[in-house]
């Protein structure tokens, strides 16, 4: 059918955030010819928004820290549904990945003796987050981008993948289009690494940009890979709530790491009211001790504001629902209160949290050194994703790898802050290396242009339907989908609401199939929005079905109708797969037993 601009690589990386760039650099270092596809310009991926830091047990600030503590923290945070092998590798390899970044020019904040400084964060026992003020993600992506620039990696900017091409079950490449001209492209590849990030655009209130439409999740699913943990969507407890146009934009956990506290409208520090049992022994029971912890007192226990994100998001929801919220439907987050304890507090806040200062000043007319912020939960991160081998990051589909947010396993039922950036580095690197190995061992696959033709034909349908005449405005369908997921499959879930959501999704699917656009193919935002709908719908359906299947509350998944944990569900992950008829199949998968030595570490750290 169409003429394709064709490119050929050993390893094709889809996505140019932290995981994609790290994978590309590693594959290139292993001798592979590498191409990277990104929907945006290089260096704009969501990694840039990461604020708090990169978790790595370097022990620079507290020498009691080591990989075992980090491993145990990650597993506890994930409610033991994590892929324990990934949690182990992650904790062991993260420090070396940090050193690598420094050797490529990253400039992290320093300790008094000139080493890399580390800060406190939720769920991490010791100060562990390597950071640069509150713009760590920018430092990381720019370092990777600059390190990749001189390696001869081809970057296809502003291109979107429509389909993975398969050769008898094995991955053979991908097809897609460029945004600039709307031309179709074909990438032949011996191995493909998915590094497409998350699904935040399925929800109305989100910290994610337009890019996060679950592309990798949907591409893998359609190619025959399995998805797991899709019910676990992380709602970050602190997003902006006012003014409406900025609702959802992230307020870093670093604010709380630096001593910020959460208050309801009565001025009560409500996080002290509900400290979960597994964390009671290591959480402060008074304000004084909590403050000392944030200032580096090794004998103090952490304040309850640094409990895990799932728990804090629910506590905030409780305050709001019970009428104790702030005027615009959030709660207060106050860092200005540290001025009673620190000299030059205003300067300190501006130095430690410069972009937060800037963001509130510019977008909400609030000076955070003087007054509290209003915050509420925002859809932030997808724990679920492509089921991969813990060591190689390869999915069930030979030659198809996944790393970072679109892969699943490391974080289990809830991710700890800071573990995402380290995840990108550790598993981006592993995926890159193993993809290069796979390419070496397996050689080229056969391309069936018919698969690309089918994808291209489907992609042009919105133009055939045109605008009006019974066709749907793609933006309206997208808004309705976001509202539906926000209202019915959000932080607090029930069986009946989710059944309603499933019905609503079926209707939205029909409407999406009628989405029409006008104009030509050059940088046509409406067309792009119409094409994004199918992936958004696929991940929304996966989230809803998995959440219906898990009849308990655990981690980020909270069901009002099953508010307790169920031990039986503690042994399984929910798996989503496409059956031969093209329907979504849900099943339970036993988590393999943990080796004795890892179990012992968890026991020791309890």
């Amino acid at each position, binding site marked *: 059918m169409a003429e394709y601009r064709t490119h050929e690589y050993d390893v094709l990386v889809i996505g140019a955030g932290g995981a994609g760039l790290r994978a590309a650099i590693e594959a290139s270092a292993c001798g592979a010819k590498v191409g990277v596809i990104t929907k945006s310009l290089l260096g704009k991926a969501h990694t840039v928004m990461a604020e708090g830091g990169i978790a790595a047990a370097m022990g620079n600030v507290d020498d009691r820290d080591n990989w075992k503590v980090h491993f145990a923290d990650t597993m506890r945070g994930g409610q033991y549904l994590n892929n324990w092998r990934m949690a182990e590798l992650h904790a062991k390899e993260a420090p070396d990945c940090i050193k690598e970044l420094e050797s490529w020019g990253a400039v992290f904040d320093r300790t008094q003796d000139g080493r890399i400084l580390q800060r406190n964060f939720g769920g991490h026992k010791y100060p562990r987050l390597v950071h640069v003020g509150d713009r760590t993600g*920018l430092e990381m992506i720019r370092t990777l981008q600059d390190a990749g620039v001189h390696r001869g990696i081809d970057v296809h900017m502003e291109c979107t993948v429509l389909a993975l091409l398969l050769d008898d079950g094995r991955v053979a490449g991908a097809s897609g289009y460029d945004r*600039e001209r709307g031309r179709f492209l074909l990438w032949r590849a011996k191995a493909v690494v998915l590094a497409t990030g998350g699904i935040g655009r399925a929800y109305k209130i989100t910290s994610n940009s337009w890019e996060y439409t679950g592309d990798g999740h949907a591409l893998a699913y359609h190619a025959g890979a399995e998805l797991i943990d899709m019910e676990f969507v992380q709602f970050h407890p602190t997003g902006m709530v006012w003014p409406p146009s900025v609702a959802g934009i992230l307020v870093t956990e670093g604010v709380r790491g630096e001593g910020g506290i959460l208050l309801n409208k009565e001025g009560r520090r409500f996080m002290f009211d509900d400290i979960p049992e597994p964390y009671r022994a290591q959480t402060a029971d008074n304000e004084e001790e909590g403050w000392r912890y944030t200032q580096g007192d090794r004998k103090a226990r952490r304040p309850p504001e640094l409990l895990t994100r799932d728990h804090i998001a629910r506590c905030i929801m409780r305050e709001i629902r019970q009428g104790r919220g702030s005027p615009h439907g959030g709660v207060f987050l106050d860092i200005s209160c540290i001025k009673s304890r620190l000299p030059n507090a205003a300067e300190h806040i501006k130095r430690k949290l410069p972009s937060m200062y800037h963001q509130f000043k510019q977008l909400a007319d609030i000076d955070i050194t003087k007054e509290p912020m209003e915050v509420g939960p925002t859809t932030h991160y997808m724990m679920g994703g492509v089921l991969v081998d813990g060591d190689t990051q390869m999915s069930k589909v030979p030659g198809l790898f996944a790393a970072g947010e679109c892969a699943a396993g490391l974080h289990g039922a809830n991710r700890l802050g800071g573990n995402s950036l380290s995840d990108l580095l550790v598993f981006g690197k592993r995926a890159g290396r193993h993809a290069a190995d796979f390419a070496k061992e397996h050689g080229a696959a056969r391309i069936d242009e018919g698969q690309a033709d089918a994808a291209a034909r489907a992609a042009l349908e919105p133009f055939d339907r045109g605008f009006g005449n019974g066709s749907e405005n793609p933006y309206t369908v997208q808004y309705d989908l976001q509202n539906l997921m926000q209202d019915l499959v959000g932080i607090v879930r029930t069986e009946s609401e989710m059944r309603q959501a499933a019905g609503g999704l079926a209707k939205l699917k029909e409407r999406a199939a009628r989405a029409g656009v006008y104009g030509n193919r050059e940088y046509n935002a409406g067309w792009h929005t119409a094409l994004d709908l199918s992936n958004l719908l696929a991940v929304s359906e996966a989230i809803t079905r998995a959440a219906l299947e898990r009849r308990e509350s655990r981690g980020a998944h909270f069901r009002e109708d099953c508010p307790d944990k169920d031990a039986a569900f503690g042994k399984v992950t929910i798996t989503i797969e496409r059956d031969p008829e093209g329907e979504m199949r849900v099943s339970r998968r036993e988590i393999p037993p943990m080796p004795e030595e890892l179990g012992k570490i968890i026991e020791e750290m309890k």
Partner: protein
Amino acid sequence: MPSAMFRIWRGDASGGAFQDYTTEVSEGMVVLDAVHRIQATQACDLAVRWNCKAGKCGSCSAEINGSPKLMCMTRLNSLDLNMPVIVEPMRSFPPIRDLVTDVSWNFEVKKRIKPFKPRAPDAPDGTWRMGQQDVNRVQEFRKCIECFLCQDVCHVLREHRKFDEFVGPRYFVHLASLEMHPLDTQDRVADVKQAHGVGYCNITTCCRQVCPEEITITENAIIPLKERVVDEFYDPLRKLVLKIFS
């Protein structure tokens, strides 16, 4: 709900014109919100680049009422809504469509700059020691979000089109971040003078004034680079000493 008029440039490389759109505005809105509202309701094919919507990624650069700005950080209450708000693409770069320009030249420039090359590690575990006060100035440069507004406003590029001889403010900031990096061992001063063309900059500080990250581009990055070039190539005393002892 009150409304406002937005006069948006629509077109491509072959030409274009301003078109007026009236849309509702509400408290706290930024220009990008208005553009999105117009896109969703009146002009579904309106092309605009954006990502983070929080001033952190540098995608939504445009010229608003003639000033280079990030659309996501320009509040409507900072503009006079009694007049149409004029939104046009960055004019220094070739237009692709509507508000989207071809900024690929910038990415090519970076490839021409000598990469970071660290000294040998200070400690046996492969790590280095640097004081916070030694990295402060480099950290200022590394705040750059590559929005290219400084490139857009720089008259050496905008008016004189010296794209082949001059790398522009963004890359002097990048060069400064490399040159002043405590660990870096590479020498780029000759390149700064010749290939990168620092001499074209006549320190009008336009770049510094539009930087959304408030990087002191002219004073902290460009002038120190110019001083290094002067030290190396134009120091009369040094010239004399070299002449006598060569």
